[in-house]
């Protein structure tokens, strides 16, 4: 499994990052909460009060509408290329679900909000998942896939 090139997009990536950060700041402003995809999903599928689920569902709807708004404004759907097989997608998805729950967060919760709060827990978590992701891709593409 080797990759195909993707275009280096520093400006659009930075602009997108600013919007991701802005959404985190807005959620803190409105609800006083950390913007974490793990927490949003977890609260949606487990326990909790019904009133709590409605705003979470609304946020998920807003998220899904994001690329559709980009499509509406630019006439082009942002590229979503999945270069791996369906079994690997399912295995990867399940593993991510287990990991983010035990690790109490993912890229948004730890990597953006936690680091912005200078949380030592988030620093350790982010360093860990980043290093392991680099190592995983290296092994899959250059050791096993070589």
């Amino acid at each position, binding site marked *: 499994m080797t990759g195909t090139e993707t275009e280096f997009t520093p400006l*659009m990536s*930075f602009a*997108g990052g600013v919007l991701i*950060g802005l959404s985190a700041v807005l959620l803190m402003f409105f609800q006083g909460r950390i913007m974490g995809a793990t927490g949003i999903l*977890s609260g949606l599928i487990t326990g909790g009060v019904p009133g709590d689920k409605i705003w979470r569902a609304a946020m998920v709807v*807003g998220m899904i509408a994001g690329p559709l708004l980009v499509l509406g404004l630019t006439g082009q759907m942002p590229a979503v290329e999945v270069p791996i097989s369906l079994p690997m997608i399912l295995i990867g998805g399940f593993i991510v679900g287990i990991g983010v729950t035990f690790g109490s967060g993912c890229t948004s919760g730890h990597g953006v909000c936690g680091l*912005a709060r200078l949380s030592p827990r988030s620093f350790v978590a982010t360093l*860990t998942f980043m290093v*392991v992701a680099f*190592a995983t891709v290296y092994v899959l593409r250059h050791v096993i896939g070589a």
Partner: protein
Amino acid sequence: MRILSALFVGLVFGVGIAISGMINPAKVLNFFDIAGTWDPSLIFVMGGALLTTFVGYRVVLGRPNPILEPKFKLPTKTVIDTRLIGGSAVFGLGWGIAGFCPGAAIPALGSGKYEVLAFVVALLSGIWVANMIQTKQSDKRITA
């Protein structure tokens, strides 16, 4: 107001994920592939997001309370344990396999691709199973 604001926050996040390229697993996996087809774009995503959040949090958290709640609900845990590190390592493994993290996969559903739906269903099952295990473990600790 809470629902409307959540919808708006989700939309801003979703547009950010979409235009940043985080929505594209091929791009994310290339970011992790320094030895191969490396695409450093995601450094700029992290940079933009962190800079904005770092400054924005300082402004917002300087207020006495959020708009819709009586007070801020910030994480209080400080312990760095094997659960945090192990869980994060497992997440990194899955992220490296699939190229999707949870916050990128949800907006990607908007693309209508069945692969994304498959990922999200597997993701939700993983979250559900891990929550069950955690609940069982904490029950045991309470009764023990």
